């Protein structure tokens, strides 16, 4: 019965979406407050209806209702409760429903914020923005109704009252805590990107294209950015721990699909500052946020349409076509609005000099958008190459690694140069006061890195030297910013330096939060440089008693055992670890064999990771033969990943900076 209620709720929400779109448009058109209010109510109603549908599906999981098709697909009686719930986004139709539900939460929050705000002032910007939100909701609602080909209703039962004996269980790779939170994190990041996009559309529709819509949606964008940063990193961390290949990023189409909206969102966070400060780039900002939003949909298109082969074993279906159509139609809509509002989109100011804060921002935007296009090019190369010469080709990981280095290093340099270069035009005084010392310190940093790497056997690793130079320069430049500001505050308020620093950040959280993010970026770069550039990999077939060496470390295979868990069997090989000849402990890589996974699924690799400061020793197994105790051969891969811990720390600092920045109250008196 609950499944039927859920299905009915989905059908009804088609109506409530239409209601919202219709009444908001009509109400705004004829300026009728009651019609507008009715439209807002419909947005809330959609949330309630989709919550009912989602709740009904979760109920189906918890009660093991194997007459429901989706439950059978991704759950099973033996699956632990946590993974019964996360099965909600374990396959396509459930993910779409979950995505839709998050979107309805976003809609309700916009309504609520608007309600709070309208106690003081009457303003229809948010009402305009609710229309695009409702349109996106309608698109997803139609997808999950199951009335169109290619997607079935997640609440549908099998035809003819059939009931499966048990579910098939979720892919065992996904049954880890990290995978329980990685997909929803990304979803939340993507969904919250819909709101600033909706505000941009609302601004266009209402004709108020000053910085008002940006101020109103700024925290949504920052929130989205923080969440996407966390989500992408969780994915990398999960891959590192679970997949047994010792890396965390492989430029897989699905990874790229999550990374591209992040790049565009980051570009947007920078370019809006120009609009606020100098009233430039109005059109650009609207295009950028539109692009960022469309890329969240494009990601789904790329990964679900089957046009690109990916290691992410996503279901393929006709759904790609619907997404592509929606992307094209909504982009056309935005372009139509832009043309309609063309006169109001002109910039009030122009670039005044090639070397200035403004042009640093512009360059930053070019690089972010350029990187996005490069990654898109590489991701879609199979399609592009086929269109060009009829031969399908693709580019390997190496393409991306090589091609992002130069724009990446330029961006790193800008991370330090942007905040210290003067507005309008760089002056000799500005250069001397702000740049000279950081540049010198950066050069020293680069030289020291060169010396160190030469000492351990790398003659002239150009990119590492450039990266270290830029990294040290940025750190010096940003620390100097903090130092100068804090000293000034301390002097003015006649207090200590630390108090001054605290005051400085408190007074301008967004700016200094941003600088903290920049420091996080530098740390991240150093981690990537070390772990991508200088890792060691050794492979060996081993029997009990044998050893292998990975750099300074020696691994000796000393034992094996098995242990039974609720839903899997864990087979372990024990290694003795020595560093420079001194015994320092054991490592236990394993294979997990899930009893109730897809019947023919192979065991999954559970790598063992040991941290030595920021460096990791990483061991993964290919197989464990039954006769391992009596001389059976085990295939072992050992990695030494230098500075990989720095990667995670860098991201943590970025997130911290984001939290500081988002704490700043969004709307100050300056409204357009």
């Amino acid at each position, binding site marked *: 019965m609950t499944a039927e209620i859920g299905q009915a709720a989905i059908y009804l929400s088609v109506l409530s979406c239409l209601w919202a779109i219709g009444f908001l448009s009509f109400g705004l058109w004829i300026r009728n407050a009651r019609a507008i209010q009715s439209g807002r109510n419909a947005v809330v109603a959609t949330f309630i209806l989709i919550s009912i549908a989602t709740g009904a599906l979760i109920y189906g999981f918890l009660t093991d209702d194997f007459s429901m098709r989706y439950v*059978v*697909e991704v759950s099973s009686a033996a699956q632990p409760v946590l993974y019964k719930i996360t099965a909600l986004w374990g*396959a*396509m139709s459930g993910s779409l429903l979950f995505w839709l539900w998050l979107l309805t939460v976003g809609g309700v929050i916009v309504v609520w914020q608007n309600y709070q705000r309208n106690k003081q002032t009457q303003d229809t910007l948010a009402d305009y923005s609710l229309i695009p939100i409702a349109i996106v909701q309608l698109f997803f609602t139609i997808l999950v109704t199951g009335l169109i080909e*290619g*997607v*079935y209703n997640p609440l549908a039962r*099998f*035809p003819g009252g*059939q009931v*499966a*004996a048990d579910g*098939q269980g979720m892919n065992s*790779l996904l049954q880890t805590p990290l995978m329980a939170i990685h997909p929803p994190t990304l979803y939340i990041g993507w969904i919250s990107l819909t709101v600033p996009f909706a505000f941009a559309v609302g601004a266009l529709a209402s004709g108020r294209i000053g910085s008002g819509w940006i101020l109103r949606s700024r925290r949504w964008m920052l929130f989205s950015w923080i969440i996407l940063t966390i989500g992408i990193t969780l994915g990398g961390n999960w891959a590192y721990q679970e*997949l*047994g290949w010792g890396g965390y990023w492989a430029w897989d189409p699905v990874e790229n699909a999550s990374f591209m909206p992040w790049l565009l969102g980051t570009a947007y966070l920078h370019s809006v500052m120009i609009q606020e400060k100098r009233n430039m780039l109005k059109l650009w900002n609207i295009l950028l946020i539109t692009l960022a939003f469309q890329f969240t949909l494009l990601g789904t298109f790329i990964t679900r349409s089957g046009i690109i*082969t990916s*290691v992410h*074993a*996503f*279901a393929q*279906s006709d759904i790609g076509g619907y997404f592509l159509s929606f992307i094209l139609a909504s982009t056309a809509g935005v372009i139509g609005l832009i043309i309609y509002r063309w006169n109001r989109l002109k910039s009030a100011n122009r670039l005044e000099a*090639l070397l200035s804060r403004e*042009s640093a921002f512009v*360059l930053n935007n*070019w690089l972010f958008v350029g990187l996005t296009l*490069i990654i898109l*090019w*590489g991701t879609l190369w199979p399609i592009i*190459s086929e269109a060009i010469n009829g*031969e*399908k*080709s*693709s*580019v*390997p990981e*190496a*393409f991306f690694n*090589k091609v992002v280095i*130069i*724009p990446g290093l330029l961006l790193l340099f800008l991370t330090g140069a942007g905040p210290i270069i003067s507005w309008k035009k760089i002056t000799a005084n500005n250069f001397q006061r702000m740049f000279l010392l950081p540049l010198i310190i950066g050069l020293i940093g680069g030289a020291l890195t060169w010396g160190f790497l030469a000492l351990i056997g790398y003659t002239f690793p150009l990119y590492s030297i450039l990266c270290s130079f830029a990294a040290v320069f940025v750190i010096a430049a940003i620390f100097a910013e903090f130092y100068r500001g804090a000293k000034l505050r301390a002097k003015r308020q006649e207090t200590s330096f630390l108090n001054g620093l605290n005051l400085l950040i408190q007074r301008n959280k967004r700016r200094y939060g941003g600088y903290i993010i920049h420091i996080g970026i530098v740390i991240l770069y150093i981690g990537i440089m070390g772990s991508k550039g200088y890792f060691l990999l050794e*492979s*060996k*077939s081993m029997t009990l008693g044998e050893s292998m060496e990975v750099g300074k470390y020696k691994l000796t295979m000393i034992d094996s055992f098995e242990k039974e868990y609720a839903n899997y069997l864990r087979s372990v090989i024990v290694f003795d670890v020595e560093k420079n000849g001194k015994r320092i402990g054991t490592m236990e890589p394993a294979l997990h064999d899930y009893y109730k996974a*897809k*019947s*023919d*699924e*192979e*065991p*999954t690799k559970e790598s063992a990771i040991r941290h030595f400061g920021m460096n990791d020793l990483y061991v993964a*197994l*290919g*197989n464990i*033969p039954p006769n391992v105790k009596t001389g*059976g*051969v*085990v*295939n072992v*891969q050992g990695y030494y990943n230098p500075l990989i811990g720095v990667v995670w720390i860098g991201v943590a600092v970025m997130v911290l900076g984001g939290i500081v920045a988002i704490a700043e109250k969004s709307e100050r008196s300056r409204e357009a």
Partner: protein
Amino acid sequence: MQKQKRLKVIAASVILLGGMVFLVVAMTRSTSMRHFTPAALVEAASGADNQRVQVDGLIAEGSSEWDAANFKLTFAVRDRETEALVNVIYEDRLKPDNFKDGGSVFVEGRYDAAQNLVVATKLMTKCASKYDGAESAVPTDETSYASE
């Protein structure tokens, strides 16, 4: 002055854009790998000899051999439509999860036409479909069933 400034901005933009485009095109040309089905690769034969290629097919039933002592996996990729086979050797790397007879496989490596062999540097596997074969306990009624 105004004109000169604009010229500088344009020059800088052109250099930056040109550089990026050049970099991307050069890298694409040097790393791009042609994509084949086993049938197409066998047909191309010497035309693809010693090139880096990608082959997309199925793991031929009974062809795979895992030589643990030498850390070596050998198998044949079968075409999805014809009987064409291409041999694959994959050394010093762990066998990927989900590697099993009849499963989908995606091979990346250098092709040796004389031996009809791909020396693989990367393997990707996928479940053929979770709704076929033994799992008939689950009703399969519609075409819309997702295949992984």
